[in-house]
């Protein structure tokens, strides 16, 4: 048996960086020589992410071929208003309302192996293959992996260390309001062995199982770029660079160099007939300012902050980055920084607070105008460059869970929800943030060489992988196969087939909620990733 399709996810990978790292440096070898070969011998395109280019909605779209309006995963955290407080729950695989590629391929007889993908835990009850999930603490990897014996097999891999491999809240809790230079350096160093662990697992399982679809996500690209963007963005490497800057750049480049080696080894291990695809859930760019969106909404009368308790309790509450609001008066607010969304509170039942349902259109229209009015006082430029209604960007059966308005800031940053002034403030230094355009590359037999296609959509990846596997593309997938990526000869021998629709999964009511400590841990982690002020 041979691996037919190899998918390598690179969280947050962007052509801004990859183009630079695949060029020869000063006449020598590029930082990523194997990726340079992929560029030369394969096809590539920019890949447009979900309306909010964020890990949860974007990876779930990539794994399902459906937009968030159908799959229903919008953020890391789902907030629910209950009485006088808002309770927070973590999204997990059970919240995804549509079928994943792992299931689509599996039920049609293809074997799959999916490593380190978010929202694959808890795993499905039946699968023809293996899932070792991402974004799960090491203490829960065993229970959340599939099949039952897989953890024992993985544990037997020489040098396997689950604590080094897994997403670890405690280890990453070192984050603070602003990272010191030392912490930043440690943050980058932390991801070098993590990726190696995942590589070893992938190499081992691919060699032993030879799945039809082998898929691995390297998420260190995103983590590194959030904290090390000034050192990896080729546009920021000019002028006089400090010793620390040069050290961080070299350290960051060592990460990409290592990743390139992992990719080359995985491709070799997959065999000569494999088609290889690479994609990211979003791209990257630099954010230069803080936008305190709830403070702006307070100025406009939509948000009413609650008075914080005195003393330490108040300071703690203020630092949680969750809006502490007077629900009897608040009519529209932003729940989480990573959402970049505005929720309008509608009183749907007697006793509920919020606007009258019949006023919804009028309130939303005015709210859009008020958000458009947030402008740079010096240039008059709008701070919020795009404002989308949920009908426009999240049409589908899960639209009711979406924010009423989806915002795009002019620097693509994530908003702050804190009660601080000024509303817009320049950052002390540029931090990495998500850009809507990620990457999509293909290489191998049947793939056009050296071709650059027009921009594709993240949902196209699912359809493309299914086509590569020789399976029909379900009729209800939103994504299309970029046929120009494949040679004419390949297309003639492998005609594209549209098949029956996917099998849906029913969303159940969520039960668990997070306590204050866990909320804080998550906030710390999101802050580390640059989602927080």
């Amino acid at each position, binding site marked *: 048996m041979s691996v037919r399709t190899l998918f390598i996810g690179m969280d947050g990978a962007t052509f801004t960086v990859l183009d630079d790292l695949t060029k020869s440096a000063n006449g020598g070898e590029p930082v990523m020589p194997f990726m340079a070969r992929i560029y030369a011998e394969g096809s590539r395109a920019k890949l447009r992410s979900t309306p909010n280019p964020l890990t949860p909605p974007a990876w779930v779209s990539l794994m399902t071929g459906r937009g968030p309006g159908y799959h229903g995963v919008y953020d890391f955290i789902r907030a629910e208003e209950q*009485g006088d*407080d808002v*309770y927070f729950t*973590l999204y*997990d695989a059970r919240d995804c309302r549509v079928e994943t590629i792992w299931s689509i391929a599996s039920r049609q007889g293809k074997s799959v192996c999916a490593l380190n993908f978010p929202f694959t835990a*808890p*795993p499905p*009850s039946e699968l023809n293959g293996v899932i070792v999930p991402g974004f799960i*603490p*090491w*203490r*829960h990897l*065993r*229970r*959340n*992996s*599939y*099949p*039952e014996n897989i*953890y024992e097999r993985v544990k037997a891999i020489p040098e396997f260390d*689950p604590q080094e491999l897994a997403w670890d*809240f405690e280890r990453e809790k070192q984050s603070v309001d602003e990272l010191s230079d030392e912490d930043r350096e440690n943050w980058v160093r932390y991801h070098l062995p993590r990726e190696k662990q995942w590589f070893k697992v992938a190499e081992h399982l691919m060699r032993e199982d030879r799945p039809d679809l082998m898929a691995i996500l390297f998420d260190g690209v995103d983590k590194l770029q959030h904290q090390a963007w000034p050192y990896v963005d080729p546009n920021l490497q000019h002028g006089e660079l400090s010793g620390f800057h040069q050290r961080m750049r070299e350290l960051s480049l060592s990460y990409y160099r290592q990743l390139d080696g992992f990719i080359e080894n995985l491709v070799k291990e997959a065999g000569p007939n494999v088609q290889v695809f690479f994609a990211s859930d979003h791209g990257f760019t630099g954010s230069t300012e803080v936008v305190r969106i709830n403070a702006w909404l307070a100025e406009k009368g939509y948000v009413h902050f609650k008075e914080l308790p005195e003393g330490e309790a108040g300071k703690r509450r203020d630092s949680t980055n969750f809006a502490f609001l007077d629900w009897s008066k608040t009519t529209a607010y932003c729940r989480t920084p990573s959402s970049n969304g505005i929720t309008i509170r509608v009183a749907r039942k007697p006793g509920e607070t919020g606007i009258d349902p019949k006023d919804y259109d009028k309130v939303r229209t005015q709210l859009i105008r008020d958000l458009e009015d947030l402008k740079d006082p010096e240039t008059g430029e709008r701070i919020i460059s795009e404002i989308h209604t949920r009908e426009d960007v999240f049409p589908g059966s899960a639209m009711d869970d979406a924010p009423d308005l989806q915002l795009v800031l002019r620097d693509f940053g994530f908003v702050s929800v804190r009660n601080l002034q000024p509303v817009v403030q320049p950052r002390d230094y540029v931090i990495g943030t998500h850009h809507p355009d990620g990457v999509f590359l293909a290489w191998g037999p049947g793939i056009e060489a050296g071709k650059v296609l027009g921009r594709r959509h993240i949902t196209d990846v699912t359809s493309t992988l299914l086509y590569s596997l020789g399976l029909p593309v379900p009729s209800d997938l939103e994504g299309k196969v970029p046929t120009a990526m494949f040679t004419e000869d390949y297309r003639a021998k492998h005609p594209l087939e549209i098949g029956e629709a996917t099998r849906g999964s029913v969303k*159940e*009511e*969520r*039960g*668990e*909620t*997070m*306590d*204050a*400590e*866990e909320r804080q*841990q998550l906030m710390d982690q999101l802050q580390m990733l640059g989602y927080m002020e």
Partner: protein
Amino acid sequence: MSNLKKDTPIDTVTAVAVDLTQDWGLDPGTKFASETLVAGDLGFTSIDIIQLCVALDQSYETRFGFQDLLMKDGSYIGDVSLGQFADFIASRLDAKGASA
């Protein structure tokens, strides 16, 4: 992932807790009994408790809504015993008219 549902809720809760903690390096003499406290005796953090709730939901193929056990008067309670989890499950199953 095997289904660890047993004849009684306490047996199920105990089996799930044992399964969940098998890689944690707990003292081999650690007791898993009705009075065992998940945080105090087993070292659960909040995310471990969430994972226990998910695992119990999966064992019974339902969603119990454990926030009603873990919260009192709007605040999270300090610690929970395996027996309290079992009693909560039993009460929810009774309410549904299902047998444990």
